[in-house]
């Protein structure tokens, strides 16, 4: 049992299931206006953060984006404190100052997220520089959407990371869209692998609906980076089921064909991984995670709002 429940598929399922369920609860809670802040959901995209983070140690650090619930959870972030943060309560991971868009938990290497596209990428590269200067064994993993690669910051960051052979793995979650704008309307040329290689960075693309392959390739990439081989780039194809922002669906905007979305929902990665597990194990994982989710919400509900004067705290450190 020990071993079975610690298989890659089991670990992946546990992580993905938690993410899915936390976000479904957010969908359920949002209309109550208890979460007074934009939310960017990863439902449908869980596999990427879960598969990559499964290969990381607590001392490895990750940087993400406003679409950061999945990463926070996959990296082992505290679930109750995340929910409290969404509620804007004092027990949130940033005492309500961050909200959904700026989740952080340095204790497990979740370094935080930015709501300005592509801005965390160079920070991640800087963290990798620091780790290298500190002769650390830890590595950095930097998550971003394909839209972020439009930005000059991505170019500058890739170049510098390669130039200095830094211990960093770049993970592009290519979900085809930046809000409602399709990647083909924003990106010229043969694609991101060619661009990465033009910086001297090895690159690989993993198609959607191959969660176990993704898990394996992510493992290889993490190992390469950890061995000192310099940066690696993984383009992970994925798909967002919900609207860019908010809890709802977005079929009404007609920017993507309904049947494209339907096919993606049909081929649910969570189901693919779950189906690899024996029924009892799957059930026990689900039960355990359900309890975590319920506890987290109860924790958030019970927490209080910050006092007025807290608004002045933390402008400066120390």
């Amino acid at each position, binding site marked *: 049992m020990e071993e079975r429940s610690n298989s890659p598929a089991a670990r992946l399922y546990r992580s993905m299931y938690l993410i899915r369920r936390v976000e479904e609860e957010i969908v359920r809670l949002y209309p109550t206006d208890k979460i007074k802040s934009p939310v960017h959901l990863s439902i449908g995209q869980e596999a990427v953060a879960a598969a990559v983070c499964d290969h990381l140690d607590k001392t490895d650090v990750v940087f993400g984006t406003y679409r950061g619930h999945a990463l926070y959870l996959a990296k082992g972030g505290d679930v109750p404190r995340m929910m409290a943060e969404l509620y804007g309560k004092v027990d*949130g991971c940033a005492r309500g*100052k961050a909200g959904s868009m700026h989740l952080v938990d340095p204790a497990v290497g979740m370094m935080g997220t930015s709501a300005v596209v*592509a801005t965390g990428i160079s920070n991640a590269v800087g963290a990798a520089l620091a780790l290298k200067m500190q002769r650390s064994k830890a590595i950095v993993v930097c998550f971003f959407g394909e*839209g972020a690669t439009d*930005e000059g910051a991505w170019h500058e960051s890739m170049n510098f990371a390669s130039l200095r052979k830094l211990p960093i793995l770049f993970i592009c979650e290519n979900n085809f869209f930046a*809000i409602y704008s399709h990647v083909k309307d924003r990106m010229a040329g043969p694609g991101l692998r060619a661009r990465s290689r033009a910086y001297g960075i090895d690159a690989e693309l993993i198609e959607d609906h191959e969660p176990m392959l993704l898990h394996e390739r992510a493992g290889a990439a993490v190992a390469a980076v950890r061995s000192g081989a310099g940066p690696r780039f993984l383009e992970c194809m994925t798909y967002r089921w919900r609207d860019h922002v908010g809890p709802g669906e977005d079929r009404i905007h007609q*920017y993507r064909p309904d049947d494209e979305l339907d096919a993606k929902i049909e081929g649910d990665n969570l189901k693919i991984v779950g189906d690899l597990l024996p029924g009892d194990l799957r059930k026990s994982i689900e039960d355990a995670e359900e309890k975590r989710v319920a506890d987290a919400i109860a924790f958030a509900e019970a927490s209080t709002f910050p006092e007025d004067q807290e*608004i002045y705290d933390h*402008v400066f450190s120390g």
Partner: protein
Amino acid sequence: MARDSRVFVMGQGVDDARGMFGTTLGLHREFGAERSFDVPLAEDAMTGVGIGAALMGMRPIQVHQRMDFVLLAMNQLVNMAAKMSYMFAGAHKVPMVVRAIIGRSWGQGAQHSQAFHSYFMHIPGLRVVAPTTPHDAKGCLIQAIRDDNPVIMIEHRMLHNVKGVVPEESYEIPYGKARVLSPGKDITIVGISHMALECVRAKHLLEAAGIDAEVIDPVSLAPLDISTIAASVERTGRLLVVDTGWLSCGASSEILSEVFERIGERRHFVAKRLGYLPTPCPTTKILENLYYPSPQSIAQATYRLVRGAEAPAWQPGKVDSAEVAEFRGPF
């Protein structure tokens, strides 16, 4: 756009189903994909592209969903757009409009709620307008499009849903002409952008305390109509500037300084600035509510300025800022 084929609109999402909070909705269908188009996430180069097109005689309108992102374009706006006319001694002009939207709604947090109009007011060669009423928004935009110079148009997200009378025909709102939204004799309150609206609400609250405030909307921030404001302060002897932004080196310090330089020697007056608290914007609503000036906090500050620090405490009544109170997520 119909009367001038040189005008086009560019920006992330201008042609999508949400049409930049509805402001660009359907333009691409009416004028074609060439004249209203989506762009990659590349604020720096896209601003440069706008400038380059303007140099060649086009009249681009660039739209940013959040003014926070304009920080990525500062180099092009400040080092290029603002300077080309001067650096090349008139050989070039840059007829470009940059619409920058202040993102306040709810829980937008530190990076989606900022206002940087003072950054542009700092720079010779840029015009900055921040209309409040729908009427002025239309006139300012038309004026900006027809101008041969780069114009930064500040739009507050909370104003997009505010209704008002807007004439059908085309008209321009001249630069450097402040609007007295509501006359009064006890104090001059200058409210910038959305704050002009909040100041009018504060004025109504203040009536209960027997205070008659004059509310002025500068409309255009660069050039600034300091005459209208100074003349008002000369009458009232008191000035409160309420900005939708931080105070330090902000628009409010500029307005206060100019009024003081203009009339300080001959007319004693008192003044105060109000704006965002000196912190980044917190996400949780309970703190966010404190962060922004409200009709109550404006009324309170006014009361103290008019009655003096020793006056008995006064509690303004309640008034809802509908556009703020009625906002429901996600964005």
